[in-house]
């Protein structure tokens, strides 16, 4: 799993919903990367030096798919690229979701907002019984069709325009769903609620966290989250999201 920086070719670029883009890039990192890991994309404008971490959405032979939201100048630049353009990427980064945790267990795969994309490759790779629960803001339910191929899909929309009106936990309750292990990616409030939900029911929960990053490889100590136990790197209570994560056992970390 050697990390590297390379200039990847963009194979396709399309908009999935307002402000949401999907890009396939050609890279040998596809051979080594797994779901829950991420790549860091570099801007070509010298005024922006730090790379933008983007989760891996899908992997196929020699290609990786990234689905991202325009959040600022960097992602705006990426969205303007076309098939045939090149983009500098660093990866594969982070630890990824542990597939073995779901062995012989019923799993929830839960995505919220721009946390939806990384659940796709996980859904494709995870064997066994799994329920896919995705929360969107409104009826722009990007990747919905792809998820429908991978297992039973339950959708919640904040504005009630489709599926359960509310969030992913509302969908779980409405459909009276249950599981033994859950994997989740999404906004902090969702992860906090899922952590509580899982601990109440004694469910094993794996969540993917976000923080601003500089190096992306564990060297700069920018991207910490607070951990319950003393961490092995700095002997304090800080895990590095880029290197020790982004995926953590929910009990391991304190969510602000």
């Amino acid at each position, binding site marked *: 799993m050697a990390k590297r920086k390379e200039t990847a070719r963009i194979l396709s670029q399309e908009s999935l919903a307002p402000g949401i883009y999907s890009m396939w890039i050609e890279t040998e990192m596809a051979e080594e990367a797994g779901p829950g890991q991420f790549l860091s994309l*570099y801007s070509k404008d010298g005024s922006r030096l730090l790379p933008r971490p983007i989760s891996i959405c899908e992997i196929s032979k020699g290609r990786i798919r990234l689905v991202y939201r325009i959040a600022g100048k960097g992602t705006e630049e990426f969205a303007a690229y076309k098939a045939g353009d090149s983009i500098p990427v660093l990866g594969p980064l982070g630890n990824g979701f542990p597939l073995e945790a779901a062995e012989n267990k019923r799993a929830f795969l839960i995505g919220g907002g721009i946390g939806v994309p990384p659940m796709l490759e996980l859904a494709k790779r995870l064997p066994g019984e799994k329920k896919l629960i995705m929360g969107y803001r409104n009826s722009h339910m990007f990747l919905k069709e792809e998820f429908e191929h991978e297992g039973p899909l339950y959708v919640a929309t904040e504005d009630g325009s489709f599926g359960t009106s509310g969030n992913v936990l509302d969908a779980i309750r409405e459909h009276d769903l249950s599981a033994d292990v859950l994997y989740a990616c999404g906004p902090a409030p969702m992860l906090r609620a899922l952590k509580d939900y899982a601990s109440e029911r004694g469910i094993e929960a794996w969540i993917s966290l976000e923080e601003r990053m500089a190096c992306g490889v564990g*060297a700069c100590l920018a991207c910490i989250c607070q951990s319950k136990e003393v961490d092995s790197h700095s002997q304090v209570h800080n895990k590095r999201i880029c290197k020790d994560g982004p995926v953590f056992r929910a009990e391991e970390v304190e969510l602000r």
Partner: protein
Amino acid sequence: MNLSVDLAGVTLKNPVMTASGTFGSGQEYSEFVDLSRLGAVVTKGVANVPWPGNPAPRIAETYGGMINAIGLQNPGIDVFVKRDIPFLRQYDTRIIVNVCGKTTEDYVEVVERLADEPVDMLEINISCPNVREGGIAFGQDTKAAETITRAVKEKAAQPVIMKLSPNVTDIGEMAKAVEAGGADAISLINTITGMKIDIHKRTFAVANKTGGLSGPAVKPVAVRMVYQAAQAVKVPVIGMGGILCAEDALEFILAGASAVSVGTANFHNPYATSEVVDGIRAYMERYGIEDIRELIGAVR
């Protein structure tokens, strides 16, 4: 062609080092760069005990740079000695340990602890803008800087580099002060105190409110200060601040730096350190420079 330089009696195979805090203890970037290619690895600051650092967000990108307020998170000298020094010993490079502390005693404790360790030099960080006590307080006052230099030198088994803060009115005076205190070398610049405001959330972009500005944005300030420091003192000067490529490194060397450190650039390009070495060699070939020492301070 000679690329090796001498820093207070320590020979570096080339003048390219890593900037403290941007390269960990080398492990993470050893996946990208053969550490044996570098003149020295300067480690992240280490204190007498583990420090938790500041709350997140700890960094923010700025135009041509970044601000950081890591707050010197580190595992403390015990783990460092057990884990990081043996790791670095695997490579044919110089080991420079960056030392931080809140009080003079903290610094001295770490320095004493390192006396019997196989490290080549010590870099004393009296210029971190991101911790409330200690650090920068020593680096903004000539008397305090001289005093702590003397205290460290008394106990140090290795040559001592004093790392200066750019957040001062007169860098030449600061350089003279640590030279008077016995510093064997000087390194600069540490980061410039900066601030970014998130206008949409209407809050500070880093939790610590202020952070240290680094990256190519600061390079002109860093080159100027290296030049002024090199004019002010006789001990060797190590230059840093915004070096992205060999051309940048050469600016520092021509301004008077005997060696350079590459920091923020690692985040932009993990191969940066190694590419700077190659680029310096290419420049020397192009202009027929036999010895890098011909370039040190050549612009006056």
